[in-house]
C-alpha cells in the first residue's frame, strides 16, 4: 500500500502500481488525458513502465469547455 496525491486528493494504491493501472482504475485508459508525475510530464509510451511510490504527486488533466 502507498498513498499518493492525485489531483490534489489523497488516494491509496497497491504496491507495484503503474500510471497505466491508475488510469484503468478511473476508466481513463481510452480517454484524452495527459499525466504529470512529480511535476514531469509522462509520455504515453511510459505509462506501463512508470510505477508510483508513496507521496508521489500525480496530475491527470483533460480538455474541458473553455473560451
Amino acid at each position, binding site marked *: 500500500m502507498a498513498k499518493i496525491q492525485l489531483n490534489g486528493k489523497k488516494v491509496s494504491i497497491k504496491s507495484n502500481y503503474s500510471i497505466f493501472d491508475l488510469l484503468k482504475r478511473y476508466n481513463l485508459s481510452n480517454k484524452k488525458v495527459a*499525466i504529470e508525475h512529480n511535476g514531469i*510530464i509522462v509520455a504515453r509510451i511510459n505509462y506501463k513502465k512508470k510505477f508510483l511510490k508513496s507521496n508521489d504527486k500525480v496530475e*491527470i488533466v*483533460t480538455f*474541458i469547455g*473553455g*473560451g
Partner: protein
Amino acid sequence: MKKDIFKVAGKVLKSRLIIGTGKYKSFSETAKAVKASGAAMVTVAVRRVNILDKKKPILTDYLNPKKIIYLPNTAGCFNSEEALRTLRLAREMGGWKLVKLEVLGDKKTLYPNMIETIKSTKTLVKEGFKVMVYCTDDPLLAKKLEDNGASAIMPLASPIGSGLGLQNKVNISLIIKQSKVPVIVDAGIGTPSDATIAMELGCQGVLVNSAIANAKKPILMAQAFKDAVYSGRNSFLAGRMEKNYFATPSSPSKGLI
C-alpha cells in the same frame, strides 16, 4: 475570382468563426451550438479530471477532436510558467502543436499581461508550437508578437465575457494593416453585428464564446454568428462605397415629370 481561403499556421479552416466551448449548460448544448455555428475550430481549456466521479462524461465524448480542430488555451494562467505547463500537457494529450496562448494580468479585467505573453510566445515557438496569441490592441506589441513568431494575432475587442463589442476600431485596423499573419478578434464580442464589423474591418476571423453561450437561445445565436461572419467577410471583399457628406439621388433625374 480567387477563392477566399482562411489559413492559420498552414491549416485551412472552412469557417472564419472560432467558437469557445465554455459556459454552456451541457456538453450536448455545446455540441449543437458548435454544429450550428459551422465552426471548424473550437477552443478548449486544460483542467484536472474529476476523479470522484468515474462515469462523468468529458468534452471529447461530445466533440470529436478528429472531426473538429481543438485549440487548447491557457485560460486562467497568470504567468508564463503556468501557461507553458498547460500547453506542454495539451501537446502530450494528443499532439496539439497549434495552441492559443493567453497570459492574464488582472483578475478583474482579465487583461493580458503582455510582458509574460511575449516571453511565453518566444519559448513556445522555440519548442515547435504554433501559437495564436490573445493580446491587447496595442499595434506595437502586436508587431512584437509577430516578430517573435506568433501564428495569429488575437487582439481583444473589449474585456473577456463583457459583450461590449469593438471598443477601438482604429487600433484593430492598424493591427490588421501591419500584420502578415491572420488577425482574429478575440474576446468582448457581444452580438453578431459586432462580429460583422470586425470582419468588415478586415479581420481574418473572430473568436466567440460568451455571446453564444450566454444567449437565451444559444443554438440560434450560433447560427446568427455564422451568417454574420460570412456577411462581414463578403462585405470586406466586396469593398464598401465611399462616404460622402452630401446626398446623391439613387433615382435618375432624367424623365422627371
